[in-house]
């Protein structure tokens, strides 16, 4: 089911981490090796020029996927196929304080990907390009001579975006790009990212735990739970007709400004440990629809039910 215009295809992607106690402790205390499946069989495609969002609670594997896609981690299994120029992938991180080298001037920070991409660039060309990029993200060309500490969180995130653009990307992986920002600053950055996508035809893998941000930004949404995608649908469909019980509960617990609900019943339980996930469907201990099959058998990840892709027996069996 490869899409002709897919820029990225991810198939049965897995990433395991060895989280065992040190070798000697294991020997002395007779402890087994322990493996954490941070990403446990994930498939998706992203269409060129579109935004796919990954959402889910802390620890579900979103950042690990970002690192696999950008090559910061090698996969343990599965395939990542990029139909484009591998050098044209850039990443924007959550923390605008940690992601900029404090000892470099902004001009040098922004020019770095450009110099990697085109080593023949002269200083004058780089300077002109940096000035242009600063203008594109709403900063002033004179900001190039300043150091990162002179900027607020929102301004730093603009610098990160200018740096990413300097690499003339086709594809941007954005890991919680606005989570550290105030809402009014977040609005400025989200609007900027949408504008840049239109102007430069960018493709985004957009990671966030905030469903209202994701709804605003994404064409398609993949909901993750414990290292797996449990549901994937076009944005409007996911909100109009969520199929997986976890998605439904997530949507139910999100505070809603337009329709506040003081009496909503919170989702029960907590996310289990990824080192020892429950057998069968890993959501079953929290799921109101779980039956015996859910407790033993693992729902397949490619089932197409009612127009969406969902990994749930209740959806598959029409019990939902």
């Amino acid at each position, binding site marked *: 089911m490869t899409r002709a215009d897919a820029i990225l295809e991810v198939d049965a992607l897995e990433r395991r981490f060895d989280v065992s106690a040190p070798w000697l402790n294991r020997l002395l205390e007779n402890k087994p090796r322990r493996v954490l499946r941070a990403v446990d069989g994930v498939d998706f495609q992203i269409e060129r020029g579109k935004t796919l969002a990954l959402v889910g609670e802390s620890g579900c594997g979103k950042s690990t996927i970002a690192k696999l896609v950008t090559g910061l981690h090698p996969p343990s299994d599965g395939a990542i196929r990029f139909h484009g120029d591998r050098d044209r992938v850039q990443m924007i991180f959550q923390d605008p304080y940690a992601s900029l080298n404090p000892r470099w001037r902004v001009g040098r920070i922004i020019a770095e990907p450009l110099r990697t991409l085109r080593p023949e660039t002269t200083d004058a060309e780089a300077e002109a390009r940096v000035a242009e990029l600063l203008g594109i993200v709403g900063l002033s060309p004179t900001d190039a001579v300043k150091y990162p500490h002179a900027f607020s969180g929102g301004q730093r995130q603009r610098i990160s975006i200018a740096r990413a653009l300097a690499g003339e990307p086709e594809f941007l992986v954005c890991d919680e790009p606005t989570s550290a920002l105030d809402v009014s600053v977040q609005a400025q950055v989200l609007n900027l990212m949408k504008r840049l996508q239109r102007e430069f035809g960018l493709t985004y893998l957009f990671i966030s735990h905030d*469903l209202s941000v994701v709804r605003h930004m994404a064409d398609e949404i993949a909901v993750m739970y414990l290292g797996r995608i449990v549901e994937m649908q076009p944005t409007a469909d996911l909100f109009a007709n969520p199929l997986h019980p976890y998605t439904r509960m*997530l949507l139910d617990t999100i505070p809603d400004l337009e329709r506040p609900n003081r009496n909503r019943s919170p989702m029960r339980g*907590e996310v289990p440990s990824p080192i020892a996930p429950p057998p069968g469907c890993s959501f079953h201990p929290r799921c109101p629809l779980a039956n015996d099959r859910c407790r033993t058998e693992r729902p397949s990840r490619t089932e197409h039910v009612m127009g969406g892709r969902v990994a749930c027996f209740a959806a598959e069996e029409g019990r939902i």
Partner: protein
Amino acid sequence: MTDTVLDVRDLRVEFPTRRGVLTALDGVSLSIRRGEILGVVGESGAGKSMTGMAILGLLEPPGRIAGGEIHLSGDRIDTLSESEMEQVRGRRIGAIFQDPLTSLNPLFRVGDQLIETIRLHTDLTRDQAGQRALGLLREVGIPAPEDRMNSFPHQFSGGMRQRVVIALALCAEPELIVADEPTTALDVSIQAQITALLRQLCTERGTAVMLVTHDMGVIAETADRVAVMYAGRLVETGPVDDVVRRPQHPYTAGLMGSIPGLRSDVEELSMIPGSMPRLDAIPPGCAFNPRCDKAGPRCRREAPRITGEGAACWLAMEGSTA
């Protein structure tokens, strides 16, 4: 109004620095009744945590209260000595912070921490205190509380730790709880559990709650009334539904428009131009005037103020900014 628990009048907090005195809070007036949740909302640096700290008597020196009064159920508390205030903090005001580990001692079992705190503030015996501790853990929704009494804080998840902190804040049955970003570090599904718990305590025990957060969604679903802060000042106060649906202050309106909705479709989020001024660069007149598209001459001259409900905006108060 005998059921007013917290009454803050015209609070002013200053920080003397080498380059002059910074005014961190200016003319902040708030009140909270029994069984009511007041949400205090604003962006980082707006002064919401500072307001909570001033009420708790925990301002970091050289910060100091330079004007105004704070009353707790009719007793003035801003003039109390350090040790008197310590008593008030344990018994009459409970505190919950963003990071539950700041309120818990990592070296002691959770049950012992609760029992110690209860005994410090009541005349109960160790056994009675143990019973109350168990009851509190049950009340805040810790499963199998008998077993968890012997656990250490690091053996709890983030959400469970925050429940323990809430139990700890409730030990002496305080009149007021100051909760500063109590759900910010938690996952959304756990966030909802904690806000539901706060609401339940507020209704069942009649505790007054000051809920400080940057998250308007949490305020909309948890608070009864809301106070919006900007640059150390109060810009708007009112019932939460009114402020969310019909904000009167241009800053509040801009803030609401910048939040992506779960339902409404807009291609562009509304933006407030510029950013909040630093404390040493607050403009004269209305602190918001350089960013406000409705600002007039009066806004640049005179600071609008509210002491009760309403919006600190000349346009909202007088119908004109001329």
